[in-house]
């Protein structure tokens, strides 16, 4: 009897530990979705890493402005941004230069080599050692005006633009080139591998309006012949192909019906 009791207690303890720690990932909160922590050189300068929120930036600019024109990499810490780069007016300093005006207010300058005690607050706008509750309040107020979505940030960004609630600019003065009208590939369908799962209708138009061509080709999608590359959900969940954006910034992969839209025959 005693032996059974010991086994029971051990199993209970192991079960509790598994449930508490677990292997399941915590679902990212709406205000944290698309949050990137950048810390290549911050610690060396005695600062906390930069906490970057995509939501506030994507409401004003297309993905292309930052990831093609300014040159931010697609993975956190891949760009190796230095304070000196920002001070020269590149990367964050392209906008956060103390001169650019947004909504009638000057944007704070991103970095400086000398700073006074009163500048610390400015540094902490990006280099946050503790979460800023003001930012969460800002997010709640922002989301309030947006068309809602079940996952990710809880915002249907596409609809928000369609309705004119947000107007992401595809041009940053002094950085972007005056691009001509874009030639866009037609939409196409991708056959789902699982029976009963609707096929995917991939819209080039929807993607190029925010991204351009060089954003995805060939860095993310290498295949040059239609149908030559077989995409698996395992790879996509692993952050490849569609998973580069969908799962970290764009609506997550758990929102199946946003991509698998073709009606089942």
């Amino acid at each position: 009897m005693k032996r059974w009791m010991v086994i029971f207690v051990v199993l209970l303890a192991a079960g509790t530990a598994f449930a508490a720690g677990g292997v399941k990932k915590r679902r990212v909160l709406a205000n944290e979705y698309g949050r990137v922590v950048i810390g290549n050189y911050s610690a060396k300068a005695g600062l906390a890493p930069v906490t970057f929120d995509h939501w506030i930036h994507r409401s004003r600019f297309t993905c292309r402005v930052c990831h093609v024109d300014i040159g931010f990499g697609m993975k956190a810490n891949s760009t190796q941004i230095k304070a000196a780069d920002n001070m020269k007016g590149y990367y964050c300093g392209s906008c956060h230069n103390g001169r650019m005006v947004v909504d009638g207010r000057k944007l704070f300058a991103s970095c400086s080599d000398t700073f006074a005690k009163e500048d610390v607050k400015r540094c902490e706008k990006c280099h946050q050692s503790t979460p800023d509750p003001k930012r969460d309040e800002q997010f709640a107020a922002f989301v309030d005006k947006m068309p809602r979505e079940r996952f990710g940030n809880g915002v249907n960004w596409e609809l928000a633009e369609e309705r004119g609630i947000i107007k992401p600019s595809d041009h940053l003065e002094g950085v972007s080139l005056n691009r001509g009208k874009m030639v866009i590939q037609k939409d196409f369908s991708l056959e789902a591998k699982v029976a009963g799962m609707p096929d995917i209708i991939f819209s080039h138009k929807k993607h190029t309006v925010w991204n351009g061509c060089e954003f995805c080709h060939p860095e993310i999608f290498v295949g040059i012949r239609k149908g030559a590359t077989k995409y698996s959900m395992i790879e996509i969940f692993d952050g490849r192909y569609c998973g580069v954006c969908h799962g970290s910034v764009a609506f997550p992969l758990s929102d199946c019906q946003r991509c698998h839209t073709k009606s089942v025959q």
Partner: protein
Amino acid sequence: MISSNSGGLRRLLPVGVLLLLVAVMAPGVAVSADSAGWQEEFADLSLPAAQAMDLPVGQLQSLLTRCEELKVKIQLLDETERKVYGKRLQMTCDLYRFMLDSKLAAEEGKGQP
């Protein structure tokens, strides 16, 4: 004699100063002209990217040749510019290469029975 020589020297002095200034400033002027050159070339090379799908094979090949030449110039820039423009150029060139390969593969496919 001495006085006429010194008069001649005095007349030559402004010319000498001017020549000296030109000699000192010339490298700077050359560098800035070169710098303007790479930026124009960068813009010229990047602009067709929006129409990359419609560019003929010959033009894509010519753009790629120019890409390689510009990469060399960008490597000479300071660290930040090299990082920013190097990446931007690489993305554009990769797109041209991708389009060229797609077109060549399509042409190859047409030729097959």
